[in-house]
């Protein structure tokens, strides 16, 4: 049954990918991408990767749909018709793809079969993690133990990448731009966005659910040691809850709760907290991110403290980066006039031809 569900979901996933490929209406394609992400999250659950499914569910259906839609609002809703190959299959691309696919398939013939327990991937450190992580780290969720402790360096690097990505988006779209509220100083304190009047049911439901969503994010953050969850998931859920508020009341209203400038600072604070834990362990006399030295008489407790702080840093940075990304895209949406601001790319003299 496990395998049957896996194959069925995989088939749905493939169909979805192909439909996304041939859908010319980008708005519809964005929605189909949301469904694609839901299917893949279900598939992760079927493949025992509950933590991955958790992340994919939070990221794919919520944040990335919002991102694609925000981009579509600023670009085109529809793919232009290709003048060179109007509505035809691009046979060159098909050839390249087929060749690559056949080569890849040939490469997998020697690979271990599905689900065998003695495949090479299950030897080495993976075996050590499963056999010894409970006595060494003392938390039931192996994924969190590996993520925050054994491979703490790696996660630190990934968090740095996320931070830099958030920085990049902020520089590309929002560099030096005034924040949303300072752009509309005459806005009264009560938001009077028209849709607030139009969707009373959604407004009430969102208002009722929002505290629970944020509380749930904190629960996921703190419960990552014992079940699926942790900083990455909690950060994304927290951001998704706030983005939901922004969608219903408008980013201006959200700005009153989470100031853009403060959120921008918070992206760095999380990363610094993570690094600071590493520096603290070095100061006590251990290696970078060796949490055990924090409480020498009881290394497991040190691991608990270290993992908690590190996950907190991850959660702060991830949620702040997601919020910053939402803010800068939304600010573009609010003020399309800024799109005529000078572009930092090499100044194109043909820009009047393009428009």
């Amino acid at each position: 049954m496990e395998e049957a569900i896996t194959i069925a979901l995989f088939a749905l996933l493939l169909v979805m990918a192909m439909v996304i490929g041939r859908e010319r209406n980008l708005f519809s394609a964005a929605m189909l991408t949301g469904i694609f992400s839901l299917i893949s999250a279900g598939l992760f659950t079927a493949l025992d990767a509950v933590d991955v499914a958790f992340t994919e569910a939070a990221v794919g259906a919520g944040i990335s749909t919002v991102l694609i839609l925000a981009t579509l609002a600023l670009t085109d809703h529809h793919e232009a018709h290709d003048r060179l190959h109007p509505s035809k299959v691009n046979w060159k691309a098909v050839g390249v793809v087929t060749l690559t696919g056949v080569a890849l398939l040939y490469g997998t013939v020697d690979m271990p079969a599905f689900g065998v327990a003695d495949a090479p991937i299950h030897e080495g450190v993976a075996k050590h993690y499963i056999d010894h992580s409970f006595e060494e780290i003392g938390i039931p969720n192996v994924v969190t133990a590996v993520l925050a402790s054994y491979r703490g360096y790696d996660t630190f690097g990934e968090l740095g990448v996320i931070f830099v990505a958030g920085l990049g988006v902020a520089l590309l779209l929002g560099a030096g731009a005034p924040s949303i509220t300072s752009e509309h100083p005459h806005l009264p304190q009560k938001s009077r966005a028209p849709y607030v009047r139009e969707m009373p049911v959604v407004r009430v439901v969102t208002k009722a659910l929002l505290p629970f969503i944020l509380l749930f994010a904190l629960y996921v953050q703190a419960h990552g040691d014992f079940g699926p969850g942790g900083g990455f998931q909690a950060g994304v859920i927290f951001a998704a809850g706030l983005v939901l508020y922004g969608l219903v009341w408008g980013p201006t209203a959200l700005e009153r709760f989470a100031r853009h400038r403060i959120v921008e600072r918070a992206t760095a604070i999380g990363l610094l907290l993570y690094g600071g834990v590493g520096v603290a362990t070095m100061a006590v006399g251990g290696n970078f991110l060796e949490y055990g030295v924090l409480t020498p008489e009881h290394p497991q407790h040190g691991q608990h403290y270290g993992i908690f702080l590190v996950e907190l840093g991850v959660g702060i940075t991830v949620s702040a980066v997601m919020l910053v990304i939402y803010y800068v895209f939304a600010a573009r949406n609010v003020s399309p006039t800024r799109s005529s601001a000078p572009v930092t790319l090499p100044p194109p003299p043909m820009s009047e031809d393009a428009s």
Partner: protein
Amino acid sequence: MIANLWHYGLVVVLMMTGLYIVIAKRNYVKKMMGLAIFQTSVIMLYVTMGKVTGGTPPIFVQNDDGTLTEGIVYSNPLPMVLMLTAIVVGVATMAVGLALVVRIKEAYGTVEDDLVTELNREDEARRHLSAAAQPIKESKS
């Protein structure tokens, strides 16, 4: 033996679908969607490799006294850790890509690959022409 390799085949087909969208489609947003599909296929490859038949998610089952229950097969946690961070990094980098698309739209007025290339070529030709015309103008003055 081959019969148990189906997951690689499915992953490869998925990956090639994403690759086709990236290569063949000219709209940059569509290309980003293709890239997302490609990324999902890579994640899927790792996760399928970590699966053990009859295994459960790698979260220890504890008895009431806090000790671990023996005899439970766990799937491999390592690919999950790698892919978990990869998903969040993926969405962050996708945001960078989409931000670039927005800037391209503002600079060129289009997000179609062939149009952007054409505009670049025109621009280059114009620059070439003006560079060639420059010394003549100076000699006249």
